[in-house]
């Protein structure tokens, strides 16, 4: 909208685009072009190519085959692990978004002068080491770790319990903590851009606070909620560090399997096929989120 307004103002002058010199354009597009086309598109293309090759120990495999995908589709192990990854990532996403929403709401409507400080505080952990945040949970949940020793010290129970570490629940809690800062910002931005006049109109028309939240605030913030869900879901569904650190063998995720195909198992084409499957799952989730976004967008 802003660009159309300013283009009417500059309509009498030659448009800037006509004046961009080819040399300047090339120089400015070169770094980004190299990185995006070579490191992103070409590298992803290699993964797709490798997924359709057989493993003969060479870099790009041999032949042209769909065997990798047939194995993924027919071996129940991969169904179990994929389903587990989806459930864990889904739970983490739900937990992060639901717990982040009130914080974003407070930041947008109630924080007042403290807003900038609070925004800074909730985003700061985002910039600290992911490995260290996961490691912190390992020492919290360990058999002779913080939680057990604190409970024994306070006399709540006598024996340390093994129930914390090496469970899928530990993976969910750790991931939800590690990705918590991701969820707040998109929701906050969506809430903050709701025109205040809309809320005033709702209350002027006699809507109770809860009704105005449910019918005005929530639908208007859905794009932010969906964006938050996406930025939490994507990294968690492919994570392999947290399952390895706090999850134990019962929490193997699809990222763990991909990592081992490029490590110990040394079957790169099969690992590439698993990666393609993960990307397809993410594509479906993105399309679902897009669809939901459009639905909410058309209603408001």
């Amino acid at each position, binding site marked *: 909208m802003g660009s159309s307004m300013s283009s009417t103002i500059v309509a009498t*002058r030659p448009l*800037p*685009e006509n*004046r*961009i*010199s080819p040399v*300047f*354009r090339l120089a*400015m*597009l070169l770094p*980004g*072009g190299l*990185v*995006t086309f070579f*490191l*992103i598109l070409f*590298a*992803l293309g*290699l993964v797709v190519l490798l997924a359709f090759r057989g493993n003969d120990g060479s*870099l790009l495999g041999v032949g042209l085959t769909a065997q990798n995908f047939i194995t993924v589709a027919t071996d129940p192990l991969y169904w179990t692990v994929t389903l587990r990854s989806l459930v864990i990532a889904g739970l983490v996403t739900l937990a992060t978004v639901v*717990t982040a929403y*009130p*914080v974003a709401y*407070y*930041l947008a409507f109630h924080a007042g002068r403290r807003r900038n400080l609070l925004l800074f505080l*909730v*985003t700061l*952990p985002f*910039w*600290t*080491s*992911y*490995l*260290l*945040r996961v*490691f*912190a949970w390992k*020492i*919290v949940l360990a058999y*002779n*770790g*913080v939680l057990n*020793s604190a409970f024994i*010290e306070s006399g709540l129970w006598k024996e340390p319990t093994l129930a914390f570490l090496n469970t899928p629940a530990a993976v969910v809690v750790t991931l939800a903590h590690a990705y918590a800062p991701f969820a707040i910002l998109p929701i906050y931005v969506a809430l903050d851009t709701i025109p205040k006049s809309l*809320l005033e109109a709702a*209350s002027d028309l006699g809507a109770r*606070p809860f009704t105005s939240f449910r019918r005005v605030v929530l639908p208007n913030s859905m794009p932010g909620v969906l964006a938050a869900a*996406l930025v939490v879901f*994507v990294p968690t569904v*492919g*994570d*392999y*560090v947290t399952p390895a650190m706090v999850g134990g063998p019962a929490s193997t995720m699809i*990222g763990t399997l*991909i990592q081992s195909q490029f490590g110990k198992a040394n079957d790169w084409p099969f690992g*590439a096929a698993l*990666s393609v499957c993960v*990307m397809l799952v*993410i594509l479906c989730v*993105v399309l679902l989120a897009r669809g939901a976004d459009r639905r909410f967008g058309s209603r408001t």
Partner: protein
Amino acid sequence: MSARANTNTGGGWLGLYVLAYLVFLYLPVLLIPLFSFNNSIQAAFPLQGFTLDWYRTLYGNPALSGALANSLVIGVIAAFGATLCGITVSYMDLYGRSPLAATIGAIARLPILIPGVIVGISLLILVNLIGIGPSRVSIVLGHILVALPTTVVVMRSRFAAIPKTIREAALDLGASDWTTFRRVMLPLSAPAVLSAFMLSFLISFDEFIVVFFLAGTEPTLPLYIWSQLRFPRSLPTVMALGTVILTLSFIIAGTAEILRHRGLGAARRNPA
């Protein structure tokens, strides 16, 4: 009126919730510095007494200082590359008005939608194909990619915040594209450039998921930490090292955050 009443009733409980949320966010992380001063191998209560021994073990450890040097060099080069790409990609995305520039801008934000493990293996295949293999150069390439969405977002929002009239005035007064970019737009976004550089340095410095696949014989600091986690005896040392890293991260991220919002007022005031 009723909207204001809503503010007062809802704010109190919500405020408490936000406080609890911040405690949840920070408490596990703050346990690392707490136990790094604890005189025990175990990270458990009760605390055994104050010691600086674990920090002393950080000195004179060649594996550690080698990893630190690697991380610093890789972080600076990757941050330089990611910032350069972030500046050019977002500038052309906003002002280039070509489908190619818009496409590059869109692809540059794509890594957000790719799990780190897939970024890692795709680059592992690529660097093996072009012959450099897992090495420090490969890590730099990987980290430019991981930091790119951040630098693009930071620079794009900054360029977009500069009033269009400033750039148009420069072009109208006969400045070339290059002069306009270098003498007008870049100085006006200098704090954001520095912020993007610092944030991408931090991303590289702390990154583990991608570097795991791309490291050759010379590990970075997170890889060194990962290798130490197998030995229960070295956990206190890891916590001392972690405390140093967390402190540095907080300082760098805090400075970057301040810089990101700095000088925006000046850019907005000038055209009037």
